[in-house]
């Protein structure tokens, strides 16, 4: 299908012509497509009446591709060519995938450094973007045959905690599937739209979204048709799967089992999931199985036991919740309603804990599996231009701070988390060496102070900076985050207006675990960060001083007698040693000492410059000293 050029300026479509648009929830476990028909948002089913499409893609030897339940059925027979949970690899490098031996796939390093991980299948090497596109294609075909026409566009949902690389990968997958992306929409925000519009809700609402593999919390203010996200937070490595794991571990312990083969592991995990679901309705459940060793499993798990097993998982969701409230500058009492999203919120202990936290019963009167797709469909209908009059406005935020690497490996925050998008921020940087004509910039995402603790998003080079004295060039870097939450970077030298040509090379995508780790550590290590930052700053200062003194010695060394020269050099040696082995205080002392030792040398150099200028030397020569 050709991408539609939708409307030329001045050319408006006929007022009553309905434009076909859909909302797609591209989930880790299941995916859905929904649309607005006769003013009502509905999920579209396949020919068997199934609305949820398992996010599983299988490649066969003959090159054919199966998606959904038929692929899922062959998961254990052909694990290498049957890709499940591909969402986890979106925008990620091989290093992010972690222990590849625990996954049944054949991973391939990206063709260019900084690229996304790929998978080798019988049908060739496939990227996560291509695999996701297969899922999206099935949903597009389902929508087009159900609606009887080509789609004008789609709104695709992403976890609120998805970073730039993951968002871009999702958008690329949609394009590959022949979809015109009207907008990338955050999953909790989509749910808020569906809930808010159906209930004419006004006031502050929290959306608690616990999915199969991710947790998002969003705080929104709903007022007269405006959905304003005040803060988003989350834990992108926490979901329903972790609750299954807890039951699985409990089974191992109860039966004194150690390492199981993959087949038995899969069996017990499946039973764990069933048990979890059973306990939503019942006080206890019986788990029975025969392992491949012939060993018999027969245990009864009570709801109370399960609650105890999963207690700390639930506690882990409350921490992002408190942070989101604080970022929104609100307290629990300000929250009028709590919307529950994601299959995992069906667990009674989750509802109980959330209810206790907010001091009110959470709202569970919507289908937690479908509400995201339904909200996305409503937004798609709006963006396609089908509505008039009662349009609503959605104001969303960027979930993680964006910054640039500065000297000493520090991250300089440019756009703080929870800024309303679209947003732009400009920052000026300067050269630190005489005659420097190029500068490399490194864009990072995260809350920590050190670059190494943040997520690397992209690196690019500015070339053609006019040669000037250190500190004279002014390079203005502009970050623009669009309404999809995607970043654009521009840089310009302000003195002569050179627009640096920028090639942004995406770094490895950020892993879920990494975002979680970064966020958690950003608070745990606030103290360490300050110490580390002080050390880095001290090191930078020391290196600059050493370079400056070395440079001066080369040019004006003859101004010193051998003893003075030796003294300065010995202080330089002390400082170099301190840099290698010393702490911040030691470096600081050595810097002070070297400064002290070079006072008379600096004086002599200044005198020499002055006399040189008086002797009619070129003034510009003087300025570079």
């Amino acid at each position, binding site marked *: 299908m050709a991408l539609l050029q939708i*409307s030329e300026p001045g050319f408006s479509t006929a007022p009553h012509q309905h434009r076909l648009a859909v909302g797609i929830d591209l989930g880790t476990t299941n995916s859905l497509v929904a649309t607005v028909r006769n003013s009502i948002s509905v999920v579209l089913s396949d020919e068997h009446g199934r609305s949820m499409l398992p996010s599983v893609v299988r490649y066969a030897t003959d090159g054919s591709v199966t998606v959904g339940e038929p692929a899922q059925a062959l998961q254990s027979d052909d694990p290498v060519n049957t890709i499940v949970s591909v969402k986890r690899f979106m925008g990620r490098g091989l290093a992010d995938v972690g222990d590849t031996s625990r996954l049944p796939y054949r991973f391939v390093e990206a063709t260019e450094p900084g690229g996304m991980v790929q998978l080798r299948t019988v049908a060739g090497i496939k990227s996560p973007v291509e695999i996701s596109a297969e899922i999206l294609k099935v949903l597009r075909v389902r929508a087009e045959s159900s609606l009887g026409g080509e789609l004008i*566009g789609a709104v695709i949902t992403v976890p609120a905690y998805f970073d730039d690389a993951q968002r871009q990968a999702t958008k690329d997958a949609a394009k590959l599937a022949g979809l015109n992306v*009207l907008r990338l929409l955050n999953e909790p925000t989509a749910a808020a739209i569906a809930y808010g519009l159906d209930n004419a809700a006004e006031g502050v609402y929290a959306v608690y979204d616990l999915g199969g593999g991710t947790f998002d919390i969003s705080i929104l203010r709903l007022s007269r048709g405006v959905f304003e996200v005040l803060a988003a937070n989350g834990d992108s490595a926490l979901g329903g799967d972790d609750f299954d794991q807890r039951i699985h571990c409990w089974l191992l312990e109860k039966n004194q089992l150690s390492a199981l083969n993959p087949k038995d592991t899969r069996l017990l995990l499946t039973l764990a999931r069933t048990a979890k679901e059973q306990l939503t309705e019942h006080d206890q459940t019986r788990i029975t199985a025969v392992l491949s060793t012939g060993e018999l499993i027969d245990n009864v798990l009570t709801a109370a036991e399960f609650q105890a097993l999963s207690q700390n998982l639930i506690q882990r969701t409350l921490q992002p919740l408190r942070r989101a409230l*604080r970022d929104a500058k609100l307290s629990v009492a300000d929250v009028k309603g709590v919307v529950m999203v994601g299959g995992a919120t069906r667990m009674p202990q989750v509802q109980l804990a959330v209810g206790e936290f907010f001091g009110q019963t959470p709202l569970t009167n919507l289908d937690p599996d479908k509400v995201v797709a339904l909200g996305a469909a409503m937004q798609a209908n709006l963006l396609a231009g089908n509505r008039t009059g009662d349009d609503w*406005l959605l104001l969303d935020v960027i979930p993680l701070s964006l910054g640039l690497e500065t000297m000493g490996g520090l991250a300089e925050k440019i756009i703080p988390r929870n*800024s309303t998008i*679209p947003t732009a921020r400009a920052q000026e940087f300067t050269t630190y060496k005489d005659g420097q004509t190029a500068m490399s910039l490194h864009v990072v995402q995260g809350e920590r102070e050190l670059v190494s603790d943040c997520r690397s998003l992209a690196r690019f080079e500015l070339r053609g900076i006019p040669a000037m004295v250190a500190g004279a060039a002014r390079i203005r870097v502009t970050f623009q985050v669009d309404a999809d939450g995607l*970043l654009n970077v521009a840089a310009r030298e302000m003195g002569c207006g050179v627009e640096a040509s920028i090639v942004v090379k995406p770094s490895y995508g950020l892993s879920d675990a990494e975002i979680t780790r970064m966020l958690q550590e950003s*608070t745990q290590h606030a103290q360490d960060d300050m110490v580390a930052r002080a050390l880095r700053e001290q090191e930078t200062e020391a290196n600059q001083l050493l370079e400056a003194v070395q440079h001066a010695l080369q040019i004006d060394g003859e101004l010193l007698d051998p003893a003075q020269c030796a003294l300065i050099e010995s202080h330089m040696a002390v400082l170099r040693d301190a840099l290698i082995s010393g702490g911040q205080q030691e470096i600081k002392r050595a810097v002070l000492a070297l400064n002290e030792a070079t006072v008379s040398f600096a004086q002599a150099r200044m005198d020499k410059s002055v006399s040189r200028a008086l002797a009619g030397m070129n003034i510009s020569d003087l300025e570079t000293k």
Partner: protein
Amino acid sequence: MRREFSGLTASFDHAKNHFQLFGIEQTFHVDTAQLEDLFRALQAQVHPDRSAHLTDAEQRIAMQRSTLVNEAYQTLKSPIRRARYLLLLQGVDTQEETNTAMPFDFLMAQMEWREAVSDAARARDVEALEQLEATMKVNTRELETQLAVKIDDEHDYEFAAGLVRKLRFMEKLAEEINSAYDELDS
């Protein structure tokens, strides 16, 4: 591949300052409820979601306009940013990075507060933190009240710049209290 970007070039009311963009008086005193309403009304017109079905060029312009409205709103909403911006419009630099000449008692109070915050964090004393936060808020509000008088009534911009420098200290203190809360969470 992607992301060739040439910078912000929209001509959308760029000649107007933030106050003019919102059509409100250029004073430190603002009606925050009115400001919020105006923000929403402006975004309702310029937000990229309004032009998602139009051409790329129109979408780009919408993004730039919406960005500007967000920027203006953030500036006008925050008392310290609003004061800084007002003084900038008057040609007065607040010198927050360079001017460190602060009254002795103010600096002493700051040091004491910061120590109290780190003590409270170490002792995991939420109540003490909440008390400090309340005190900090009262002091911040006092400074803002003074700013309104100095800027709107007396037009004493140099004095106001000094108040902005003090507010910056309070802002940093608030950040420290916030990260102390975060530490208590983890």
